[in-house]
């Protein structure tokens, strides 16, 4: 199959006099592309088209505003926005200002947002007026944030720290002196854990540039690619669609949500989308559309899947529907972005494998004692590479549990916390998570986080949250609840209570009211057998 091959554009278009060098900082990829292709459309979003040069101008202006607002090198800039041009600009602007971007899912509710802002000690917040019911109370509790840029309005806010985002773009961008090296943090991405408290994954410029290089290389992404991204930018899978597109000089078609699959199909046909990254739930929704064949999706050349296993039936159906597209089944974790991909030609041979790794990375399985296992074994997957995170933000114990000494002196390697088996040729097959995290709609759900939300209901005496198989969601969230005497709630009331505190994908789909929960000998709630 004739495919456009990526030109090896890893060289910066540096100002005259400077030595041309390999790009080392993540935001330099945008600078280089903007220099090379200023008039090319970088981003299509909400009916508007943004060219590379104008995006870069916005990035520089916003970066200057952040600096004037007190953002210093290494400071965290929280980005609490729906998918949109503001989110894209803010991500690059934070880096341009020498700071660390911290994308927060726009579905996050007040209490968790306050926790994230406090835990990270964010110096700035970029957000939207439509989300004010969530961020205004959280901001009121926070004295650390010095500047808050609000998109969607030019009205004033009672909090003097808030200024309109549009005014921030209107300023002149004095040249900012760059002091960063690739060891500096580029991003802080929070991920749910078993303890119920999200942990911030620290990613350096080197981590992220390494990942961009490895992933775009094995996918064969090219300048001519048009990527449709309906994934949240707060999720690294969505985020990297933008990072890679801008590195290659491609175009991103950014969608806010997957609530209306028909609109996604229209966009794919209209923009002649070539790349579609999805999770199994999205593929289910699309394939449910009875009029799917009415849309001309002939330009689609690549479909990718990660975050949850793609059922064999899905793999088959997608290949029948889009015979001209290469399907990539992949696996990764936020702590290192991506780990492995299955070369599409292997789908006929071993469709349930996620591959044997990716460029510039080493993988192996270990037993409980940490001994390296031969092919044909089952064990925990360990990853070595420059894409592996710096650690968890201010959580040395959790970090030490995941980043452990590797085979070479002075090096740390990442323990994935996932069990895999390998076949005789070293291809990986996911077996199970070691922890109790549930994957619903491709999103991580911490049972403990949901249980904490349930316990905040006055009448709940005990709660246990488990995942139950669901044909569309992967796993659905089910809550078992024991109520205190004299209390009564409907299933719907309990779910709504959770929706008020948690992202929607974390709220239980089912609530079962029981008289008692099974216990272990030591009196802890026993979840095995609950379902």
């Amino acid at each position: 199959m004739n495919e456009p091959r990526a030109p090896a554009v890893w060289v910066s278009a540096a100002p005259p006099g400077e030595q041309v060098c390999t790009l080392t900082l993540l935001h330099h990829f945008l600078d280089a592309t903007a220099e090379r292709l200023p008039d090319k459309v970088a981003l299509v979003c909400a009916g508007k088209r943004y060219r590379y040069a104008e995006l870069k101008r916005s990035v520089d202006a916003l970066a200057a505003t952040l600096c004037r607002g007190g953002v210093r090198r290494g400071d965290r800039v929280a980005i609490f926005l729906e998918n949109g041009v503001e989110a894209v600009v803010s991500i690059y602007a934070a880096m341009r200002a020498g700071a660390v971007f911290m994308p927060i899912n726009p579905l996050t509710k007040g209490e968790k947002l306050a926790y994230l802002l406090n835990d990270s000690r964010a110096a700035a917040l970029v957000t939207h007026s439509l989300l004010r019911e969530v961020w205004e109370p959280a901001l009121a509790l926070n004295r650390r944030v010095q500047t808050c840029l609000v998109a969607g309005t030019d009205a004033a806010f009672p909090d003097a720290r808030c200024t309109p985002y549009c005014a921030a773009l209107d300023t002149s961008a004095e040249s900012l002196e760059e002091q960063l090296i690739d060891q500096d943090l580029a991003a802080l991405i929070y991920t749910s854990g078993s303890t119920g408290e999200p942990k911030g994954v620290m990613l350096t410029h080197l981590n992220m540039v390494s990942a961009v290089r490895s992933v775009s290389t094995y996918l064969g992404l090219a300048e001519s690619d048009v990527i449709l991204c309906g994934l949240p930018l707060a999720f690294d899978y969505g985020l990297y669609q933008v990072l890679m597109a801008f590195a290659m000089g491609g175009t991103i078609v950014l969608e806010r949500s997957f609530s209306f699959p028909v609109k996604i199909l229209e966009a794919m046909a209209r923009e002649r989308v070539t790349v579609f990254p999805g999770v199994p739930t999205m593929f289910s929704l699309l394939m449910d559309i009875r009029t799917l064949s009415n849309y001309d999706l002939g330009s689609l050349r690549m479909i990718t899947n990660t975050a949850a296993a793609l059922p064999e039936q899905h793999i088959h159906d997608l290949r029948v529907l889009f015979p001209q597209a290469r399907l990539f089944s992949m696996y990764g974790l936020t702590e290192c972005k991506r780990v492995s991909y299955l070369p599409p030609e292997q789908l006929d041979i071993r469709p349930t494998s996620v591959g044997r790794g990716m460029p510039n990375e080493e993988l192996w399985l270990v037993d409980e004692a940490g001994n390296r296992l031969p092919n044909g074994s089952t064990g925990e997957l360990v990853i070595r590479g420059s894409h592996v995170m710096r650690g968890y933000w201010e959580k040395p114990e959790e970090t030490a549990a995941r980043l452990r000494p590797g085979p070479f002196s002075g090096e740390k390697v990442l323990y994935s916390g996932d069990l895999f088996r390998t076949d005789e040729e070293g291809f990986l097959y996911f077996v199970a998570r070691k922890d109790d995290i549930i994957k619903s709609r491709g999103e991580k759900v911490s049972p403990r986080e949901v249980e904490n939300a349930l316990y905040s209901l006055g009448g709940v005496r005990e709660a246990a949250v488990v995942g139950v198989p669901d044909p569309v969601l992967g796993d659905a969230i089910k809550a078992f609840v024991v109520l205190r005497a004299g209390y009564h709630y409907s299933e719907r009331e309990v779910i709504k209570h959770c929706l008020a505190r948690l992202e929607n994908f974390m709220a239980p789909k089912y609530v079962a009211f029981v008289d008692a929960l099974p216990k272990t000998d030591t009196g802890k709630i026993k979840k095995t057998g609950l379902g």
Partner: protein
Amino acid sequence: MQDIKGKLRAFIIDNFILSGQFAEFQDGESFMDRHILDSTGFLELITFLEEHFGIEVADEEMVPENLDSMNGLEAYVLRKRAA
């Protein structure tokens, strides 16, 4: 007319509106913008429309113009019933 909007408002408040925040929404406001409905919520809304108003929602009609606000919903239901 009141009947359609009244029923819809009751359904949405009962199933999706949380106490305190999001307590009020205008007829013209977007459910998506206000985070009142997500992809699962819209599917539940479609089921409600089909069951309570006796219409069949075609794939190509599952668009924000028809489903993302009280005004949109009322106009959509009226059009379907008139057809």
